[in-house]
């Protein structure tokens, strides 16, 4: 998407996310069993399955329409904490996408940040609370920085994915202060946050779908969860 993201690019991003959620469903649930209630994988899988089905709805012909539809579908099907949070992320992101087609990299980055702001508005999480914020915020910082430094989009989105994974991993030693894991206090230390783990999959999916030339992204997309090299 060197010239910007088309509607099809964004659909592919969401589909790639759905595939990654599907192949990591049980792992997300196991992470949630350790410090939550053992449903994050099932929640996200239910939501993304509905999202993929909804992508076939008529009238989804602009990037904003697609992304808002994703948000509405997640709000209506996920439940739990992740439903409103992921839902709000996509709804706000869709609202910030504007009309440009394809969406230029800077607009896309700004829309993603609007999504992050929505997550914060809804959930009040701060850095270090051991939530999806701790994967999402560093990812978007890395994206902005790379773009500001003049890096091409593929490199920038790869930097974002790396930062998301680092952010995800950094949740392990944290003490949870938001969500269900906060009930555990000190006992949450030593476990990776499930929402941060699913967020890292979201950004990794952006690499799949938006992070390289069109050919590569579509041919490797089926391998979500099986990626073993950059």
């Amino acid at each position: 998407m060197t010239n910007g993201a088309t509607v099809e690019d964004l659909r592919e991003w969401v589909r790639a996310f759905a595939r990654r959620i599907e192949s990591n469903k049980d792992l997300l649930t196991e992470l949630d069993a350790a410090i939550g209630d053992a449903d994050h994988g099932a929640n996200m899988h239910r939501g993304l399955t509905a999202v993929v089905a909804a992508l076939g709805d008529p009238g989804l012909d602009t990037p904003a329409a697609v992304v808002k539809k994703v948000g509405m579908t997640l709000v209506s099907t996920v439940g739990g904490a992740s439903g409103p949070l992921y839902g709000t992320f996509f709804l706000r992101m869709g609202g910030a996408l504007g009309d440009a087609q394809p969406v230029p990299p800077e607009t896309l980055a700004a829309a993603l940040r609007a999504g992050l702001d929505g997550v914060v508005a809804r959930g009040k999480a701060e850095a270090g609370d051991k939530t999806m914020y701790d994967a999402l915020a560093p990812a978007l910082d890395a994206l902005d920085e790379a773009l500001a430094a003049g890096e091409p989009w593929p490199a920038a989105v790869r930097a974002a994915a790396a930062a998301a994974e680092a952010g995800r991993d950094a949740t392990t030693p944290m003490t949870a202060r938001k969500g269900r894991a906060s009930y555990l206090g000190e006992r949450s230390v030593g476990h990776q946050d499930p929402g941060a783990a699913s967020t890292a999959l979201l950004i990794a999916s952006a690499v799949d779908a938006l992070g390289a030339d069109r050919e590569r992204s579509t041919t490797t997309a089926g391998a979500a969860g099986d990626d073993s090299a950059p």
Partner: protein
Amino acid sequence: MVFVTWEVPAILEGTAVMKKLINAAEDVVTEALQGIEAAHPDLRVDLVNKIVYRGDLPRSGKVGVISGGGSGHEPMHGGFVGLGMLDAACAGEVFTSPVPDQMLAATKLVDGGAGVLHVVKNYTGDVMNFEMGAELAAAETGARVVAVVTDDDVAVQDSTWTAGRRGVGVTVLLEKIAGAAAEQGRSLDEVADVARTVNANGRSMGLALTSCTVPAVGHPTFDLGEDEMELGVGIHGEPGRERIPLAPARDIAALLLEPILADLPFRAGDDVLCFVNGLGGTPLLELYIMFNEVSKILSGHGVRIARSLVGNYITSLDMAGTSVTLLRMDDDLLSLWDAPVKTPALRWGI
């Protein structure tokens, strides 16, 4: 950049064989709702929105009272729908809060023009989904909605730095009492006040002897040793604050009551509703033994049991264990508690 391939734990491979009376795990909630509809002619079920509601809705001029939450806590909330308690209950997936569309639909169903009370247990997911449901209802129908959040679990540190205390046993008592206030024709503000009073005067704490098994997961959420129990559990199979060795009922009662009594604090001369709840897998025989121990401790503190409730009312699937809830009563709460109620799980006076 390397995408790690996570290995699926062996226990999850293949279809886990589960000792449960279910068909497919994904149909558990829908089929249970169908069972409720088949068993209780006074109730209706909206299978699309997963709502259990009274057959006589909306009642013009009556404040509507709805609640909802993840499934797996039966009879809460669907078993508390009926005259004098909830007008509707939204069922989420097992241990997953329902979605805003459900709360929107339920709010519309029950609104008789006097506004709607949302009874929400304090979990991040429940609070956010109810919030969004209320926002949608305000936008779409203009219905006045007040949400009251229960957060009675003293096992959780209350602090602005955390998600706050969980809503547990008090939710049952609040639904009964606020439902009675609404049935009497009180205004939305009055009903919400009563609900807040209940939450402010109630405290709970729970203990698990075993984990529970979520149908979609197929194995116990946590492992507890043969000689261990989990103190301060919630109702979602989430681990508690502390894992301790098995102890006799009298010690368990003391462990649960000490933080409850200290927190309000409850004082000599207080009248309380004493609620000994089972988490789903514990026989009533044991709950009565617990009640006996709890009542001895309370009488030692001069706290009087004005009303009592013993049984499985807010559960965690098949978890063995118990929770104790004390609610300090005044005359208004007593008369609202005693008022007629006709639901599958709580019924008297009618």
